[in-house]
């Protein structure tokens, strides 16, 4: 498929790092617990008292990062809003579910149900912006964000839209943390999240959460951080991933040597990281392999943070040393290949380049 590049012209994030800032990429906060919640901004700056009380955390985060990305881009209204979320509005889903079970289906209030569906995030962003354009939501495990991005990407390719706000949103409530802990998602304890990928390889990762909004446009601007040249999603690929990566890079008109950093979803879980190591060992050296989950934690749409980080790094020309597996800062960065997998079943490849 011939593909037209699209440009990243605005970024916004709330994460387990300083909110609405790139500080976490330069100097990430470190944690000593496997369940880390977001550092919230002061929502009084964004919502009146009634809204701040009514809206759930994930919705508030999404609306605020969406506003930040849109403002950052200088474009007042996106043509499309597409959201990826692995679990959607967990907090309100749990509240309604808990009340329904405890009260044996009686005396239920609709508020939590109304805000429980996954698409509440995208539609609440639209309501707050009064954006009547294309609106969609994708919920597909660890590749939810790239599913949403692909949807927008295809609309760009056919010329249906010229701008799109693509967001990744997930929240990790105490209860969902327990549930996923039962099936091996998390480490029992962690010494230092910042260094866990190299120092604490074992079963499980550490949980983060976050909201990332990215404004894409079909044209570059003075605001452009990077461009997305090409993307590909694969389910249970038949060909070896190594070969697929070589072909993907060639389709971008590049050689493997042109890729400055391959940014991976390594998360200190032995099984997860072994997939990256095995696929990438003959393609890239440890000083060309990047990580971001030590900054944002593991959650289904953490790749959105990886993309924000990569776009910022391309604009700066530098990937900091703590984001490089080999521990050496990478400068003169022009091309970052984002490679993500979920359970070695779902894989995604995206090439970000300088504009």
């Amino acid at each position, binding site marked *: *498929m011939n593909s037209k590049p699209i440009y990243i012209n605005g970024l916004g994030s709330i994460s387990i790092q300083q909110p609405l800032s790139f500080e976490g990429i330069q100097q990430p906060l470190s944690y000593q617990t496997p369940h880390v919640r977001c550092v919230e901004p002061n929502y009084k700056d964004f919502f009146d008292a009634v809204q701040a009380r009514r809206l759930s955390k994930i919705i508030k985060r999404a609306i605020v990062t969406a506003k930040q990305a849109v403002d950052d881009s200088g474009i007042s209204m996106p043509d499309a*809003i597409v959201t990826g979320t*692995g*679990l959607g509005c967990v907090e309100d889903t749990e509240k*309604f*579910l*808990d009340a*329904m*079970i405890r009260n*044996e*289906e*009686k005396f*239920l*209030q*609709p508020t939590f*149900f*109304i*805000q*429980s*569906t*996954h*698409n*509440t995030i*995208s*539609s*609440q962003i*639209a*309501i707050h*912006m*009064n*954006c*009547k*354009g*294309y*609106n*969609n*939501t*994708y*919920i*597909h*495990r660890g590749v939810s964000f790239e*599913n949403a991005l692909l*949807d927008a990407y*295809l*609309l760009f*390719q*056919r010329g249906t839209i010229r701008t799109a706000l693509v967001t990744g949103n997930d929240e990790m409530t105490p*209860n969902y943390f*327990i*549930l*996923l802990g*039962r*099936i091996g998602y998390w480490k029992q304890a962690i010494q230092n999240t910042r260094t866990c990928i190299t120092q604490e390889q074992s079963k499980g990762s550490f949980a983060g959460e976050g909201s990332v909004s990215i404004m894409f446009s079909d044209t570059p601007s003075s605001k452009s951080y990077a461009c997305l040249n090409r993307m590909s*999603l*694969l*389910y*249970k*690929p038949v060909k070896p991933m190594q070969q697929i990566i070589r072909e993907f890079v060639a389709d971008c008109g590049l050689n493997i040597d042109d890729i400055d950093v391959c940014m991976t979803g390594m998360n200190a879980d032995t099984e997860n990281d072994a997939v990256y190591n095995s696929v990438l060992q003959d393609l890239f050296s440890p000083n060309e392999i990047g990580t971001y989950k030590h900054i944002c934690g593991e959650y289904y749409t953490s790749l959105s943070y990886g993309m924000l980080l990569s776009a910022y790094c391309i604009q700066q020309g530098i990937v900091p040393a703590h984001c490089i597996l080999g521990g050496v800062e990478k400068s003169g960065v022009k091309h970052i290949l984002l490679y993500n997998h979920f359970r070695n*079943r*779902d894989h995604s490849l995206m090439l970000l380049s300088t504009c």
Partner: protein
Amino acid sequence: MALDVYITGMGIVSGIGIGVDQTLVSLREQKSGIQPLKHLQTIHDLPCAEVDLSEDQMRELLNIPADEVVTRTALMAMLATREALQQARLTMDGTYRVAFIHGTTVGGMEKSEVYYFDFLQNDLHNEFIEAHDCGACTEKIADYFGGFSFVSTPSTACSSAANACILGANLLEAGIVDIAVVGGSECITKFHLNGFKSLMILDSQPCRPFDETRAGLNLGEGAAFIVMESKAHAAKRGVAPLCRLSGYGNACDAYHQTASSPEGQGAFLAMNAALEMSNLQPADVSYINAHGTGTPNNDESEGQAIVRVFGNNPPHVSSTKSLTGHTTSAAGGVEAVISILALQHKFVPANCNFTTQMQSLPFTPVINVLHDIPVQHVLSNSFGFGGNNTSLIFSNVQ
């Protein structure tokens, strides 16, 4: 540029039948699936259109062992997908790049709502923790058949399956896949039955879409999938297309999380976008398969939007939710199949239970099935919570 997307197979299970043939008979004979609840365990006595098969019966039909972890939503989807693949004469042997796109919202909630406290307190039902995840549900269905190279899960509440059709069409156009199997599946859960009840939009009587006396919707459940490919690809495989997808529109009402704007702005924009992409005039449309839930708000808003697009004398309009109930995330798929049947068999399905004209609307829905009439283009509406509005247009290929 016109869409080059042709439908070569379809499959369906819903309250009005298991499979396309039973569904066609029910539509032609106006046999409603709305009945007292039988399979769902709940304290509420509300009419719903359940798929009349237990999970054990579905497992048997699909040769799935009793101890395999699989939810009702996935089982229904497997039945519908199997039928669609058979009609399209598609064997999942890796010859083609095939996408499976499954619109859903409740995922594995029917088990989570039973085992939730166990999930929190013990390890008795850990196998259902991951099954809660909608993406896991999609992959479970895809893996039953094998051979899919792309899977995805759009979720926009009651327009999920319609949005699956859009992604499928765009993937085909971009040349990323050769074939896309798209649709949706959703079983009734206590969670959304109680949710809709708390919103006071469930009718305790059979629903009456576009009727002055309408008082809410009846939930339904089901799954429906269609197989899409380009004209040339269908010809190469030697499969005759049933019809084509000639256009789609997606817009956001951006008005309220659960209510539609009085003038139906999102619906208006979605229908117009679909007409524009199809290169059709409003008068070219033979039949509108309305979203028509039967709630006071939806039918008023959608009705006004239809008048704004089509004028005071719109084409035939009916809501088949009066037969199937509202199959929520599956509705876009269920109603795509119904729209295609109308094209193929030249009839317009009825809007059942209609007695009283809505005072605010100039048009009356189709009260009895219209047999043997030309049906050239069908517009199907699916609107979700949050104002996620999608319109699809299916057209004859003759």
